[in-house]
């Protein structure tokens, strides 16, 4: 097992059994679902909107070269400097370089998952800069020195009591655990940071090709202050954030708010088209846009999965994912947790090292069902499994499935194994639930089902012998037993419907057990 897989399994094991965590997340996301559904209902045709959004992103991603060039030409025309970064390392060097050139000391940053992806804060701190996260949730997880829990709600795993304790410890100021009071504490700290910062760094929700603009969505106004107050603004954008035209935002802004947070629109949606223009009263003197590839063009080359580049990072797939809801975001050990993370992390960081994520899914498909841009998420997990195993087969698994194929494809072998299994299960009680139990992975937490005394096919064959007019061809019409439609009358009694012909059961009559 790779190191990330070992880490994931250990963390998942702990958190999945943590009932406090489970109830916290279930409650929070339960509230989100109610709000999301209310807002979805305000769309005239939500499914139509999803299709339209998927179509727009399809167009953008399939003509990414053209739209990126258009975006760059338009935004540079207003004095913005655009930088192209092929790798995370290049992006870090570009941003650190800009900060050094400006002789910056303090940096304020609004929420950006791409910055998490390239571990930007670490690089900036290594280079001697002080970086402060201005989004409240990010501010909190930064104080805790940990990764965001969720791509939209970074601190959703914390209670107000834990945040109060944190503020008391780190800021020396937490009069109560009232969320408003705590927000005001953070605000006092952050307001100083905006004023003192030399550079402001933001992410982008969309990059509009037609007008050459960056669109930033937020709820706290922190991104606006981050962009407007420091003299230099840097925006880090993944190249897949392109949308062709400004009018597309009329769909994407409410869609992002609805799918992401159960809001009709987020608190602030701001378009940035360049640095302060002559005659303008505010805005940064310099505006840099860093366009990040970091394996996105490799994903673009993958015809089967390139729709993963449609992602608008709303987090809707995380919110409905039963795996995410039970193991939490930090367990994944990735920038992007949840279903979208399990699809794109293998592309961003290597399939063999991260293949445990596509396997850590029941393939329930709740993610694909809610994705506002219709990414076929759970089928991509299946494809990852296939690609991973084709490239690097696991010998014992291959052997086991070959054996299984032989077993199910050979009727007499199947019958024999059922007969042996019936004998074997008599002794199962001796080892059940212990590590000697061959079914331990199941029986450590669940009872194993019992083999029925008579299989269906045995019953079917027996019943066939009972009727004289049909040999053993496997084809029968109706048996002549009670309860069938022999007199054209409706069956009224359970006993007459499935009487003694019922196969012998080895349990107490329940479905399982």
């Amino acid at each position, binding site marked *: 097992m790779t190191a990330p897989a070992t880490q994931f399994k250990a963390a998942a094991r702990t958190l999945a059994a943590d009932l406090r965590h489970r109830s916290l997340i279930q409650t929070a996301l339960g509230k989100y679902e109610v709000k999301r559904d209310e807002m979805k209902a305000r769309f005239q045709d939500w499914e139509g909107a999803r299709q339209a959004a998927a179509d727009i992103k399809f167009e953008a991603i399939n003509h990414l070269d053209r739209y990126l060039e258009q975006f760059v030409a338009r935004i540079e025309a207003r004095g913005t400097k655009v930088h192209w970064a092929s790798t995370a390392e290049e992006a870090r060097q570009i941003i650190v370089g800009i900060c050094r050139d400006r002789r910056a000391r303090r940096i304020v940053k609004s929420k950006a998952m791409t910055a998490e992806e390239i571990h930007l804060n670490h690089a900036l701190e290594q280079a001697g800069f002080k970086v402060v996260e201005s989004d409240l949730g990010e501010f909190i997880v930064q104080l805790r020195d940990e990764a965001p829990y969720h791509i939209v709600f970074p601190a959703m795993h914390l209670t107000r009591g834990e945040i109060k304790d944190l503020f008391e410890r780190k800021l020396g100021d937490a009069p109560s655990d009232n969320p408003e009071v705590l927000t005001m504490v953070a605000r006092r700290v952050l307001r100083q940071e905006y004023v003192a910062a030399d550079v402001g760094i933001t992410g982008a929700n969309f990059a509009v090709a037609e007008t050459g603009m960056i669109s930033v969505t937020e709820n706290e106004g922190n991104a606006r202050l981050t962009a407007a107050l420091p003299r230099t603004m840097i925006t880090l954008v993944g190249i897949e954030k392109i949308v062709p035209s400004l009018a597309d935002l009329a769909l994407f802004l409410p869609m992002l708010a609805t799918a992401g947070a159960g809001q009709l629109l987020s608190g602030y949606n701001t378009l940035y088209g360049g640095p302060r223009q002559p005659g303008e009263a505010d805005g940064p003197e310099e505006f840099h846009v860093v366009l990040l590839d970091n394996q996105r063009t490799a994903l673009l080359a993958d015809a089967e999965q390139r729709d993963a580049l449609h992602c608008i990072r709303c987090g809707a797939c995380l919110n409905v994912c039963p795996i995410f809801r039970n193991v939490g975001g930090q367990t994944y050990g990735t920038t992007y947790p949840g279903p979208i993370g399990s699809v794109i992390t293998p592309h961003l960081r290597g399939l063999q090292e991260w293949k445990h994520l596509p396997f850590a899914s029941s393939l329930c498909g709740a993610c694909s069902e809610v994705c506002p841009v219709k990414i076929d998420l759970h089928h991509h997990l*299946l494809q990852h499994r296939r690609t991973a195993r*084709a490239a690097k087969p696991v010998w014992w698994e291959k052997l086991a*499935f070959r054996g299984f194929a032989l077993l*199910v494809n050979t009727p007499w072998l199947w019958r024999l194994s059922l007969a042996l299994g019936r004998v074997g299960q008599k002794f199962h009680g001796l080892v059940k639930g212990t590590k000697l139990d061959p079914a331990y992975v*199941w029986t450590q*937490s669940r*009872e194993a089902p019992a083999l029925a005394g008579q*299989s269906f096919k045995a019953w079917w064959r027996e019943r066939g012998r009972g009727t004289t007019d049909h040999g053993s061809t496997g084809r029968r019409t109706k048996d002549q037993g009670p309860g069938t439609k022999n007199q054209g009358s409706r069956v*009224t009694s359970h006993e007459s419907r499935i009487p003694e012909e019922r196969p012998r059961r080895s349990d107490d009559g329940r479905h399982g057990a």
Partner: protein
Amino acid sequence: MKLTLFVPCFVDALYPQVAVATVRILEHLGHQVEVAEDLNCCGQPAFNSGCWLEARPVAVRVLDKLRDAETVLIPSGSCGAMLRRFYPELLAGTPHEAAARALAPKVFEFAEFLVEKLGVTDVGARFPHKVTYHDGCHSLREMHIHRAPRQLLAGVRDLELIEMKQVVCCGFGGTFSAKFPMISTAMGEVKCTEALATGAEYIVSCDSSCLMHVQGLIDRQKLPLKTVHLAEVLAAA
């Protein structure tokens, strides 16, 4: 209409009463049932584990044995999805792709078949219990079955259906339940909590594999719940 019943391996071995009930109901409705006696499994465990090479011989044999079938009925949404939705993908680019595509539209899950093909919503059953219905994820999202089982339950006398608040996976997921047992168990616990909150005595489903998982937890944790396949409910009177 000639009906060919494909009885999945775990139904054959663990829950024969589900297939018996299926046969009974179909015969009661006047249909001739043929059982694909040589077939045991659709190959989904290998397929979902990424071992497509190992899954293919199983799928190819299924295609061969069902070549002459007019209508294939499977009392399991999950196996139905494997035949209808995933065989064409599993066998894409192989000489068997055409056969897989030809089979797909002939495959039906049991409840879906009764309601959508036969137009039957009342089979004269009586089941005097409070129940809740669990949508198997493959039934719901690969086979798009939502209405049919509910319509059939509505036709059962003295049965009260109480829906769960969330539509959520039971946590089984085939080999997932063995690869990540603790996540799978936590998911099953969430499912049981949801079901218990309805006050139902039974969880009904069209998927015995989901019910196997849930019942395993119910038994271990001694929860006041029972599981039963829809076919068994419809065969009750």
